[in-house]
């Protein structure tokens, strides 16, 4: 065996482990506490993307992780560099995105002294990381980094933060390559209990109105093909959470669209009427369930998830199944192969025709008047890109219209801050996705408010020549909040009218990008065509109907059948 032992500095150990873990791109921003690491980074083939804000570095790593299927990696300095990452980390934590965030720290001798740019980032991020570490000795660094990658990508994925004091990065230690990571207290359950699985089969056989509710877990475990086979074989309709968009083909006739507060009429009605609901890789978030007592109240619920804490947290279930979505669905598919369901089309006829009827009554709809409707912009974008673009979103109405009017046939094409709902997520996430998929069309569907939260990233886009496209649904409002004020606060529009905004066309040009603007419906298609066809980045500013609301809408805490429909 080759002797792999050598003496390295902490910074060299970090670079070595990154490369062993297959990392070729990281996102970051330098500073005093990480100068040694940056000095070493420059001697490696690892590509560093210099964002203009640490929050953006984390969102970019998040977008990169989702579009590449790899662990996203960030490197930032101590103190303000570290605190700037918190929002990004919290978003990745809520959405279960695998990240390793390396923060610099003041030298160990100064920790606790309120040293310059010292902050207890391990303490701050404890509740929003899957795990975190303060490394106190260079000797421990390689083991910690190996564990960090292992924890980030295994089980229910999530962000892991590693805080490295300056002297630990400069110090030396004997390094020997370690391939397997053994942790006595961390062993995610991948294989479901087979006896429980058999019960799922009988529940399916007994059910008259069964359906599937798929979430981000299906995408994270790369189980879309298995889910699709399962649903088609059993002819069960599928609704998805926001995070689950693309887990099941959006254009399949069994697809019901999104569930919950802004879910489709048919998805909400079907969930309330079904007698069997199979949740796969979901966590029954309050934006999905509405009033929990009324949620799927006629159904037996099967819940498949790798995280035991997701199960029975928000809704009671008939059959809990802890396991990896992909492995569980593979097992289920194997079982149903051997089962004769008889004439399944006949058995499902009433149920599916009821759903088809709901689809007609409550179709997503809008009237394209003389003012641009935001839905029309998204629909046109969908048509022009043939549904193939990677879409990132900001947060608010823009995010919901993107989810409602862009139909995703493939996983990993819809990248949104689902759990935390971070305004300012979409632009940096688009950067990460574009770097992961250089040949792919990447579009950020943005609001005029959110886009300004990380607008500085236009400079990153320019520096790396990224052809990211930005579609602003510009309603000159913090639209989603305005919508709540309109519907539930007697139209008292407190502080949601952003009375001034930059000229986005000039702003684009200032950053060396193409800037285009549309104010009439006739211009929408031509602006989209021109912006999408341009070789580089483009901001397309659509002046949409200021008063438009997202429908259907279930008021917070109401049963999901109580939908406001336009």
């Amino acid at each position: 065996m080759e002797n792999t032992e050598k003496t390295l500095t902490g910074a060299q150990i970090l670079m070595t482990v990154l490369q062993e873990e297959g990392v070729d791109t990281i996102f970051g921003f330098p500073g005093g506490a990480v100068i040694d690491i940056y000095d070493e980074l420059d001697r490696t083939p690892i590509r560093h993307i210099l964002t203009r804000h640490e929050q953006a570095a984390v969102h970019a790593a998040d977008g990169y992780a989702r579009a590449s299927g790899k662990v996203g990696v960030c490197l930032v300095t101590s103190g303000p560099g570290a605190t700037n990452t918190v929002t990004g980390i919290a978003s990745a934590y809520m959405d279960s995105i695998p990240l390793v965030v390396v923060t610099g720290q003041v030298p160990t001798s100064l920790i606790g002294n309120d040293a310059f740019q010292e902050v207890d980032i391990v303490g701050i991020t404890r509740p929003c990381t899957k795990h975190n570490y303060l490394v106190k000795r260079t000797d421990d660094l390689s083991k910690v980094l190996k564990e960090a990658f292992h924890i980030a990508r295994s089980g229910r994925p999530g962000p892991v933060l590693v805080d490295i004091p300056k002297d630990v990065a400069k110090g030396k230690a004997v390094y020997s390559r370690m391939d397997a990571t053994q942790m006595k207290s961390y062993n995610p359950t991948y294989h479901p209990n087979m006896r429980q699985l058999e019960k799922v089969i009988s529940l399916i056989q007994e059910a008259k109105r069964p359906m599937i509710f798929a979430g981000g877990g299906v995408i994270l475990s790369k189980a879309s093909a298995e889910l699709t086979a399962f649903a088609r074989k059993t002819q069960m309709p599928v609704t998805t959470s926001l995070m689950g968009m693309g887990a099941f083909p959006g254009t399949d006739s069994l697809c019901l669209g999104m569930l919950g507060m802004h879910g489709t009429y048919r998805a909400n009605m079907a969930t309330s009427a079904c007698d069997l609901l199979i949740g796969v890789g979901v966590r029954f978030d309050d934006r999905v369930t509405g009033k929990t007592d009324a949620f799927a109240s006629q159904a037996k619920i099967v819940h498949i998830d790798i995280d035991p804490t997701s199960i029975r947290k928000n809704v009671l279930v008939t059959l809990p199944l802890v396991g990896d979505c992909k492995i569980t669905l593979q097992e289920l598919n194997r079982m149903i192969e051997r089962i004769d369901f008889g004439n399944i089309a006949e058995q499902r006829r009433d149920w599916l025709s009821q759903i088809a009827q709901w689809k007609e009554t409550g179709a997503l709809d809008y009237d394209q008047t003389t003012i641009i409707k935001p839905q029309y912009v998204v629909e046109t974008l969908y048509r022009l890109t043939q549904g193939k673009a990677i879409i990132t979103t900001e947060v608010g109405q823009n995010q919901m219209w993107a989810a409602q009017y862009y139909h995703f046939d493939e996983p990993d094409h819809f990248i949104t801050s689902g759990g935390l709902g971070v305004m300012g997520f979409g632009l940096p996430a688009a950067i990460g996705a574009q770097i992961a998929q250089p040949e792919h069309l990447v579009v950020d569907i943005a609001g005029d408010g959110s886009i300004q939260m990380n607008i500085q990233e236009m400079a990153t886009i320019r520096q790396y020549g990224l052809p990211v496209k930005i579609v602003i649904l510009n309603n000159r409002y913090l639209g989603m909040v305005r919508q709540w004020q309109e519907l539930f606060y007697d139209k008292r529009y407190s502080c949601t009218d952003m009375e001034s905004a930059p000229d986005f066309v000039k702003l684009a040009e200032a950053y060396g990008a193409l800037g285009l603007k549309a104010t009439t419906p006739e211009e929408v298609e031509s602006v989209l065509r021109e912006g999408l066809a341009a070789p580089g980045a483009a901001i397309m500013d659509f002046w949409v109907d200021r008063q438009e609301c997202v429908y259907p809408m279930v008021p917070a805490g109401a049963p999901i059948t109580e939908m406001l429909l336009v």
Partner: protein
Amino acid sequence: MTESKHVITMLVDNQPGVLARVVGLFSGRGFNIESLCVAETTSPEVSRITLVTTADPLVMEQIIKQLRKLINVIKVRDMDKSKAVQREMALICVRTKPEHRAEVLRIVDIFRGKIVDTGSEHYIIEVTGDEGKLTAIINLLKPIGIKKIARTGTVALFREPK
């Protein structure tokens, strides 16, 4: 659903910050902690935490699952009281006027406590037992005059098979 008291015993990595993770989990998720005891086990890498909480069955299920999810938590169990030995120690400082001394000594004797510090106006009593026993002695001593009290919180171990 009805709430009841639970004693949770867990083995955790004996590292800085692990207690903060456990306590942070409880405060962050709105679970309550009635008492908490932490000390090393025979293995210096492992500590035992004994924690008492009151929760309904669903919340209790979440508490146990959330604790298991913490990377530094090696083992967690919700203790069935009938299968475990539970003890708590209290140090009770009582005001002792001469006319009360005999009475205090009698009470200490009944509860198999010890006097571990004496002075002209006080005794410090050490007493061990389950929660009920400690409550009982405290109630008896209260009318005489308790100056200060320190309780350890419950520690517990499962009984071994006979």
